[in-house]
């Protein structure tokens, strides 16, 4: 937690020193704002990583500040505090973008936990945004990428009957089939783009969206089904927090189901990056997932 700055607006002196003690112990750098305007000024000049905001400021100023702060720094997590927690203001605060709503009377450890969750989520969001940006920057119509794809097409003399095979090889290299790549293939092979697009969407093996670093395939063959494959899939969905067919927010895993991988003797089975895990139970999933970074 070193180097992470928390900016606090708290009208009660006793509470201020409580929070300061608890947070400094954990290595956070704590700054205090005197009032609303100085808080907003700080946000402009030295943006912190997280804000703790007292909602009990006179005249509902807290709620207004929350809205302004979020509009200035949309990604900034704000934790709201109050003496007397009630449902309505809580809902209102969350609606205005608060990360969480805690009681001042609550334990310090609960506050710390909330802070660390908020920061964790924020860091991941930053990372995800960055990656998404990189992804957008990375197009596949630069000469280098096209030359690589052209190399694949030349392996079979640009014969259009090898289309499926080309797409498989391209996907192997790029992890998915980008639009640019499909357009280039159609142009280079002199076939219609709808045909290329039709094939890329008809066959299950192709993905038109980028996939995670690791591919989880849960087998739903008959043998796996009667031995609990569906439950295994649901367990993965809970564990990874994404439905089948999606990629986790940190791009670590893509979860897909597959109709029989031909390893029925060890049912139920799943695969991670092509490695088989047989005779599986829900219990063993977290351990297996922890092997993949």
């Amino acid at each position, binding site marked *: 937690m070193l180097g992470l700055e928390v900016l606090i607006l708290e009208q009660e002196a006793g509470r201020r020193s409580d929070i300061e003690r608890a947070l400094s112990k954990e290595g956070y750098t704590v700054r205090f704002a005197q009032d609303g305007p100085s808080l907003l000024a700080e946000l402009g000049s030295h943006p912190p990583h997280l804000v703790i905001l007292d909602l009990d400021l006179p005249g509902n100023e807290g709620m207004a500040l929350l809205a302004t702060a979020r509009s200035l720094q949309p990604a900034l997590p704000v934790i709201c505090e109050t003496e007397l927690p009630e449902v309505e203001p809580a809902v209102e605060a969350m609606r205005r973008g608060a990360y969480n709503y805690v009681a001042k009377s609550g334990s310090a450890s609960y506050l710390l936990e909330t802070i660390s969750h908020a920061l964790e989520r924020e860091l991941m969001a930053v990372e995800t945004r960055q990656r998404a940006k990189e992804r957008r920057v990375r197009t596949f119509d630069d000469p280098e990428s096209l030359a690589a794809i052209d190399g694949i097409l030349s392996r079979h003399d640009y014969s259009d009957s090898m289309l499926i095979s080309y797409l498989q090889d391209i996907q192997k290299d790029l992890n998915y089939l980008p*639009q640019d790549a*499909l357009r280039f293939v159609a142009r280079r092979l002199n076939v*219609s*783009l*709808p*045909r*290329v*697009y*039709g094939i890329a*969407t*008809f066959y299950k093996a192709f993905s038109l969206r980028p996939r995670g670093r690791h591919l989880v395939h849960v087998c739903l063959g008959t043998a796996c089904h009667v031995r609990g494959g569906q439950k295994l899939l649901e367990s993965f969905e809970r564990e990874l927090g994404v439905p089948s067919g999606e990629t986790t927010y940190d791009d670590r895993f893509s979860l897909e189901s597959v109709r029989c991988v031909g390893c029925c003797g060890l049912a139920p089975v799943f695969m991670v990056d092509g490695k088989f895990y047989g005779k599986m139970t829900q219990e063993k999933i977290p351990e297996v997932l922890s092997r993949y970074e």
Partner: protein
Amino acid sequence: MAERAKSIRIDGRKFTFRRGQTILGIAREHGIDIPTLCHHEALEPYGSCRLCVVEVKSGDRTRTMASCVTPAGDGMVVRTSTPGIREIRKTLIMLLLARCPNIESIKAMARKLGVKKVPFPKSDEDCYLCGMCVRACAEIVGVRAIGFAQRGHESVVAPPFGLVSNACIGCGTCTTICPARTFDLDKVFARRGMHRVEGKDGVGRCIICETYYMGG
């Protein structure tokens, strides 16, 4: 010696036929009605709607076949409206009506086959995937600007990536041939600012050169 003319029996009537004719072709030639939803005179037979199924007895085998894609065979005995066939057609139109409850051609066909109620929850699709637009684009216009995407129940007719297709010449054949009249060219090609050819009567055939042209 002249070859004996090949003959087929449809609903008790005997007809001679030319090589390569389909059962549907012969039936229509002689005014026997077989309902279809994906067949078009200007296009290659496709056999997807299956409404044209008939009972075909050939040798000692009796089978249900799609008449639009089954070539006539010598000595075939065809029945176009047995109770079983009627049952199949009713179920099929129910399925299509549940998919596309607001398409006139489907509603008309359902009325014709005596189907009023549909035992399935209704959705509201505007396309029943007869593929005429896709086929017309490929076979008549020859540009293949649209195609099928996805598969199974998720199949759709779409230009690549849902975006404007560069290959499209804006001829409008797809919109004119669409039996559902829902293929919205404006929507698909709006961004290219191309005009669309107004067509009223679908694809017609030139009586002199025998090629197909756009109606209107």
